[in-house]
């Protein structure tokens, strides 16, 4: 058979193989405390979110401290619990394509009460911020998966 046929066959086979056949996602997370104080401050570790934290409605606070940060590798339908300073969270990858991730996220407060139970289809590489008002302060968990 001609070389052109084999080339076409190779292209078809390559395009038929899913880009993420292993269905994994690599995720970074940040746990942040938000408050208002005399001297505004944003921790250097929060650089990826600094511009967003300076915009409304986050700008109602002026002090943001990192409580925890880490990386989790999510396997399909295997819930992972990041280590948080305040409360508890779980991240679950339900499905994914090369650009979209179907995630289930739960957040419990420090008293163990469920705050958020969320299922969503998010863009890969996009930050997801979960904010919980605690009195005048805020508790933020930010998640970004690829």
């Amino acid at each position: 058979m001609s070389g052109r046929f084999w080339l076409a066959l190779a292209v078809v086979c390559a395009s038929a193989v899913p880009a993420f056949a292993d269905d994994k996602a690599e995720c970074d997370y940040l746990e942040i405390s938000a408050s208002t104080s005399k001297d505004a401050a944003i921790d250097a570790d929060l650089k990826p979110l600094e511009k967003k934290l300076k915009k409304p409605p986050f700008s109602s606070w002026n002090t943001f401290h990192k409580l925890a940060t880490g990386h989790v590798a999510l396997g399909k339908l295997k819930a992972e619990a990041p280590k948080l300073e305040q409360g508890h969270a779980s991240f679950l990858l339900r499905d994914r394509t090369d650009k979209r991730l179907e995630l289930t996220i739960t957040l419990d407060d420090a008293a163990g009460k469920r705050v958020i139970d969320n299922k969503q289809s998010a863009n890969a590489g996009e930050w997801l911020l979960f904010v919980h008002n605690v009195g005048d302060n805020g508790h933020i968990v930010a998640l970004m998966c690829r």
Partner: protein
Amino acid sequence: MKKLHDIDLMEHADGEADHGDLLRDPAARAKVEGLGELGELLRGHLELSADAVPSARFEQVWDAVDKGIAQPEKRRGVWHSIGAWFERYRGHVITGVVSAGAVAALALVLRGSPGSDGPIANHGTGSPTVTPVAYRPTEIESLDTPGGDSTVFNLDDEDGPATVIWVTPADTVEGI
């Protein structure tokens, strides 16, 4: 006897006037015969010239056609082939370019302004707003916030978009 002038002879030779009774003079007859022969020669020459011009031109045309048919296809360069392709499919190319431009213009017009930071959902209090087609926002499939009110919105800046889920306890007097 009336004297014959040259003009009379020419009229007689052309058949415009009949002066036969006056052509007894041998010199006049010779002039008339000479004029007749000269006229024949001139007509013949003009007819030949008239016939020769179109046939020569047709010969040139057929020669060019014969050359075009008989000339074998020469090995040309890549650029010549590309140019020939564009020349051959010029109508298609122009149509394609114009169509692509129209579609691009339509997409730009319909896309609207990117980066709207407004809420995409306000749980229980508001309705979703229209978001740009080019950016596919996070889809909230389900959201449960026991004992609290939630607001979902996009936040966009130079670092890229982010989806925010903001939960305010129900007993909080002031919202966000």
